[in-house]
């Protein structure tokens, strides 16, 4: 079922949520943002735990605003799992079906099927306290899916787990979500998680959605400095538009001119920010004399070996850049260095944050 938030507004003394969002049928959309940006509030509004001041929520184009939480048919996986400690694994999963007064045999069969799906086949009679964090998370997912809800909401479901487990579980969540083709809204502050499992990402800040798009769009084409900085690492350089030629801008910075694709609404003299990703830089041994653009000279301030890549911190005047390089050039801290960025890998963003 599709989900739509239309002009939903919820105001608090120190915070205002104002959101428009569409999640298509079978799609997994992630709300990504720092803590306190309103992502959990959004989820709670959808679930019906918070009544918005304005706006409407639609599931499959039907308004659900008047429905109390227990009639919304929305499955939720909570951050702390919220498994019922008084029930065993099987009864936890079957709880929703029991509320619907499904017969014991039927609901246990269904619960067993779901246990199998989350690879916990023989765990049915265990107590919740006997499960590891990852296992509890799987049970929580199975429980949320047992009633075949119209929507699945996941509130930072992996944040309490360690890094290794997180990666395994997130692909499993994605597999199950695809299998069931259930419309899903996933909440996280972890950009890697969001990039890895979303059909689309909505980046949120201060109660507003800054940008919605496919992971690659969000990563490569951020609409502003906040999105650029929040989704991955960003190199930023201030400057002014000098001239526009054939779809490209010559961008004047303190470190020389850089060529970048012309964004909409740019004009000579406009102050903007240049943005590029660390992995789009390449090291050059010297500046080719014939080419004048897209080279930056600096000194290596730090060098970190990260296995498959090497990460450099380069200082040039007042600016600092992060470079991620494949292969291992023999570079050490203190070395002078020249690096280049392809014009097509550069983006100009509005100067305001």
């Amino acid at each position: 079922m599709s989900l739509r938030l239309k002009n939903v507004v919820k105001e608090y003394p120190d915070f205002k949520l104002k959101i428009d969002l569409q999640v298509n049928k079978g799609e997994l959309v992630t709300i990504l943002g720092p803590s306190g940006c309103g992502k959990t509030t959004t989820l709670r509004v959808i679930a019906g735990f918070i009544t918005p001041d304005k706006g409407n929520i639609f599931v499959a184009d039907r308004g659900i605003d008047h429905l109390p939480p227990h009639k919304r048919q929305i499955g939720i996986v909570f951050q702390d799992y919220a498994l019922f400690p008084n029930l065993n694994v099987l009864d936890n999963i079957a709880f929703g079906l029991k509320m619907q007064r499904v017969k014991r045999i039927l609901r246990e069969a269904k619960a067993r099927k779901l246990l199998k799906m989350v690879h916990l086949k023989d765990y049915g009679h265990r107590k919740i306290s006997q499960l590891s964090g990852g296992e509890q998370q799987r049970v929580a997912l199975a429980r949320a899916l047992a009633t075949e809800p119209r929507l699945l909401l996941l509130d930072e479901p992996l944040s309490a787990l360690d890094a290794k487990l997180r990666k395994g579980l997130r692909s499993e969540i994605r597999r199950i979500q695809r299998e069931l083709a259930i419309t899903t809204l996933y909440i996280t502050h972890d950009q890697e998680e969001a990039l890895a499992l979303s059909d689309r990402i909505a980046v949120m800040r201060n109660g507003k959605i800054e940008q919605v798009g496919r992971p690659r769009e969000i990563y490569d084409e951020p609409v502003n400095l906040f999105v650029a900085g929040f989704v991955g690492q960003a190199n930023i350089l201030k400057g002014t538009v000098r001239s526009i030629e054939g779809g490209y801008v010559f961008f004047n910075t303190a470190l020389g001119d850089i060529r970048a694709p012309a964004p909409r609404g740019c004009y000579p003299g406009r102050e903007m920010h240049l943005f590029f990703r660390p992995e789009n830089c390449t090291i050059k041994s010297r500046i080719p004399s014939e080419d004048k653009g897209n080279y930056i000279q600096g000194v290596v301030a730090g060098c970190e070996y990260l296995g498959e890549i090497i990460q450099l911190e380069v200082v040039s005047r007042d600016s600092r850049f992060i470079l991620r390089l494949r292969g291992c050039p023999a570079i050490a801290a203190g070395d002078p260095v020249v690096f280049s960025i392809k014009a097509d890998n550069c983006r100009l963003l509005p100067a305001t944050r």
Partner: protein
Amino acid sequence: MFPESTLPGRKALLYLLLLSGPLVFLFFFFYYPLSSILQGGLTDDQGRFTVSRIGSILSDPYYTGIIWFTVKQAFLSTLLSISLGLPGAYLLAKYDFWGKNVIRALTTIPFVLPSIIVVLGFVRFFGNNGILNRLLMGLFRVEEPPLRILYSMKAILLAHAFYNFPICIRIVSALWSRLDPNFEDAARSMGAHGFRLFREVTLPRILPAILASSALIFIFCLLSFAIVLVLGGGPRFTTLEVEVYRLAKVSLDLKMGSALALIGSFLSSIFLYLYIRLQRKMSFAEEITADFERKRLSALLKEPAGIFFVLYLFLIAALIIAPMAAVVYTSFLKRSGWGGSTAYSLDWYIRLIFTSNLYARSILNSLFFGFMTILFALPLGTLIAYLGSRREIKNSSILESLMMLPMGVSSIMLGLGYIKAFQGFPVEITGSWYAIVLAHTVISYPFVIRSVSSMFRKIKPSLLEAARSLGADSWQLFWHLELPLIKGALITGAAFAFAISIGEINATMMLAGPQTMTIPVAIYRLISSYNFIGACAMGTILMAISFLTFLIIDRVGEGIG
């Protein structure tokens, strides 16, 4: 992040409806009797408002003497209880040792052991003809009992200390064990040690707990009834509670009794207020600290002070066990003729079980009242705790403290209120079984609230939201999730209600008639007629019942702080 819930008006109405049940109950069986005491104490014979009754009490040396004695004995008892409890609190907080769980469990005693048992145990152990004196007489071959403790202030203080020092251990050790020992280590590294270290570093930090337990013990001693009635005696050793009882039951002067009860409750409410303030302060301290590692007791034994602590442990164990053992021992005796020799026998038990008499009847009465009290107090307390835990209800904490008020009113006063308020009712209240059950309910349901509401608060909000999102309506939520989660607290609450009902003597003495005599009242009658063997047989049965409820509380033990 932004805790808030939806509040449809219909739900608010439902809560209001649910609330009206407890409110009506409390109005009729607590506030109305209370107001009749106010009215009795503050009006003259024509029904006009006057403070002359209060004034005449305050200018009469007989009554001021009683007030003064009440405060004095409470103060000294508190002092004694605290000094007896502090070393125990230290040991429990800082050391692990064999039998520690037993000692910790014993600190529940004041809440479940009926006061009449303490009285009986003291008479049998410390009395002129008690076991201790007989032992000493045999040991030193003297003809006269060397210890004359009973019927004096000494006896009152000792019994109060016995009854209340576990409260000090319980409250102080709870805070002490959560204090970060690094503070003390830091102070030690700066040169503080011994008593200075305790006075300047440790004491200020455990002081809130000491003061809170002091205030609580002070209230208990101020309102103590059976202990003063039997172990004190005579106008010299009479407290306000005993005097109110005497005025109501002997002099039949209900108005004077009311005026005196008002003065008494004024005193106790001051200390109740202090206790609540201090407890709030402590719960704050609890939040910022954690549980720390404890040392083995053997480490302490290597220090010179260790001997003192071992002696202390033996002393408190003896102090707790000896009087109770004296009761059980005496119950198996038989006296042949006046002043004749004693022999072992089961006579009294056989009489209680196989013949029907008032005493056998009192055992059935007590059990019946106990179960009826559970039946009333459990739903009442649970409902109030449930409503108090709803975030949708504004000022739920005010509501809860209003409902907890019966805890601060003495049960003698409650009994007096019933007599006064229901005087001239078409249905005779005094002496009826329902008067006693209602009074026991009012006295015990705050304990149910305490036990249950702390459990309700422990339920994570996300659990409730999860159940809601899985399709549970309010009723299903309560039935399938909240009720199972508070089950332990319900059992504890029921056990407390039962224990309180079965041991209650104050209000019961005011209200019971011959047909509604309970075990504690029967014991009191038997003591008054110097039939100690009978009293001890009844006492042993009462102890056995109390011990069972104590076991339930200790095993299930959820939700009582």
